[in-house]
């Protein structure tokens, strides 16, 4: 990979991590209210998948996918305002956290009903196929969501029509407190692809290069009309399900093991092996992402709240 690419990828990994850490802190300070769902530890997946996507490519991120918004080009200030519930946020304060989208950048806002976005992304891919557009749709979901009927309905339909859609399972082994072995009787969610007539692939979600290699090959196939792929990225969330959750249900040893496979440190080792001056790049990038995040927080804090009566707006094209 070229130096510019390496540095950009590192920047997005670090920016996402900085955002995650800052958001957790702001939540503890009572500045960000409601549910906060940290994706710390999983950043390489969204960064790797979204890096290089076109503006028109459709993605449906879920609650831990902060980096998807950043890589897809959402202004960090507007993203932070969204998390604060301010009028300047993507949803204008209508919903919390990442329940917002930016269709101008091909980002579809999720609901809390995980897996419900899978049929929607499938419909976006249907549109691309109908209109012979060279774009792809990408649906992110967790291993827990794969238990829902929408997973089956979406993948089945995509297989029939060979749609340009990639289903990215971020398998972090726990759906809230429920471990994978209470969620399914198989080890790999990706195995299920066979039942829908297309390819499944498994990769390490903590290895940015593995994510990029696997998902970009799937994206290329989809663009060439070769149909969908189910990619499973194995990963781990460092925090609980939400910031309110103390994850007593999983062993401390497990967390330590996964922290030792941290996706960002791993990428730093790669940069070092490649002969870059890592200390310098790290220092410079950390300064940059801190600046961007500080500015975003400042913007969010200074932004106005919506007025109460705005709760009645944005329901219909023509209000009645």
């Amino acid at each position: 990979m070229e130096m510019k690419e390496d540095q950009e990828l590192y920047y997005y990994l670090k920016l996402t991590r900085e955002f995650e850490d800052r958001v957790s802190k702001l939540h503890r300070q009572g500045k960000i209210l409601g549910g906060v769902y940290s994706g710390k530890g999983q950043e390489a997946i969204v960064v790797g998948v979204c890096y290089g996507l076109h503006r028109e490519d459709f993605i449906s991120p879920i609650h831990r996918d902060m980096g998807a918004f950043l890589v897809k080009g959402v202004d960090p200030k507007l993203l932070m305002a969204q998390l604060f519930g301010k009028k300047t946020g993507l949803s204008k304060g209508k919903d919390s956290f990442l329940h917002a989208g930016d269709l101008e950048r091909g980002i579809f806002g999720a609901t809390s009903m995980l897996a419900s976005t899978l049929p929607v992304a499938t419909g976006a891919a249907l549109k691309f196929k109908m209109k012979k557009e060279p774009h792809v749709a990408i649906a992110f979901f967790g291993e827990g969501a794969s238990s829902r009927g929408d997973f089956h309905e979406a993948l089945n339909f995509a297989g029939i029509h060979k749609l340009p859609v990639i289903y990215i399972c971020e398998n972090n082994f726990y759906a809230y407190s429920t471990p994978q072995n209470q969620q399914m009787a198989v080890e790999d969610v990706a195995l299920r692809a066979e039942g829908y007539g297309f390819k499944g692939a498994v990769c390490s979600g903590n290895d940015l290069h593995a994510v990029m290699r696997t998902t970009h090959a799937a994206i290329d196939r989809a663009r060439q009309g070769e149909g969908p792929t189910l990619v499973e990225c194995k990963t781990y969330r460092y925090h609980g399900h939400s910031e309110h959750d103390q994850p007593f249900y999983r062993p401390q040893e497990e967390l330590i093991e996964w922290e030792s496979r941290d996706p960002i440190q791993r990428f730093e080792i790669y940069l070092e092996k490649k002969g870059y001056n890592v200390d310098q790049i790290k220092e410079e990038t950390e300064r940059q992402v801190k600046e961007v995040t500080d500015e975003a927080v400042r913007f969010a804090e200074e932004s106005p709240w919506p007025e109460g009566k705005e709760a009645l707006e944005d329901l219909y094209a023509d209000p009645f």
Partner: protein
Amino acid sequence: MPTTYIKAIHDAMFEEMKRDENVFLLGEDVGILGGAFKATEGFLQEFGAERVIDTPIAESLIVGAAIGAAVLGMRPIAEMQFADFISCAYDQIINMAATLRYRHGGRAQVPMVIRGPSGAGVHGGLFHSQNPESYFFSVPGLKIVTPATAYDAKGLLKASIRDNDPVLFFEHKYLYRRIQEELPEEDYIVPLGKAAIRREGSDMTFITYSAMLYPSLAAAERLEKEDGLHVEVIDLRSLRPLDWETVFQSVRKTSKAVIIHEDRRTGGVGGEIAARIVEECFDSLDGPIVRVASEDTHYAFSPPLEEFILPNVDKILAKARTLAAY
């Protein structure tokens, strides 16, 4: 040549697909079969499999995929083979579609129609007779359309397809081939949210929609002949938006209101209509607001059971005469 209610629906979709290449169909058996009720007969031949999609039995996918295409500028028409089956897509409708514009801060929209045959009276039994409108009536972000005539079925469906919000279009299957009328040759729409006064009167107001328009009109005729009462009959045509002004104006004039719908009494839209009339027209009222609706049970199959459950002319007459005596 007169056009039936089902043909009016067929023609509305056909003409809109001719007019706008972003309009497309998806649903169970809409292609090769032409729909369980033949609403889309000939569409596959005319528009091809790309725009007339026979889906697997997967209502959540049908609605979800329609949403995904709609946010990117398409205008899908998703068919529920029977409106009863819409329950399988409930999450996609009330959480995904209804909140979509809202949670995107007004910067996204989902122009789609979900149509389906609703209603009883054809021995459909528990799962082919339901009137699902009240399951959706309290959900902001949705529109609900309930045509009673062939003219409206065509004009309202065209308006729904051109609308920029998700529309639930509940056709009454009892009417499909039982009513017909001459329709204009030229393109027309019936705007959503405008009720029709089907019969003018000064003594009492009947508020109804969909198939119940016909027993309501028949009862009104008899009340005029047998009791000398002049009943105004309002056909709401759409429930969201609901034409409150027309309702209030009529009740202020007549001082008496009967609400007639085929949906069940408890939790049916009649309850909300009655409450709003009391809030807005209390001083004008000269008697209780009464409802004629299906009994609070399931739409049973056996003919005596179904007949017992559904509203009819006699039931409307009985309630109206009690009210008239106030």
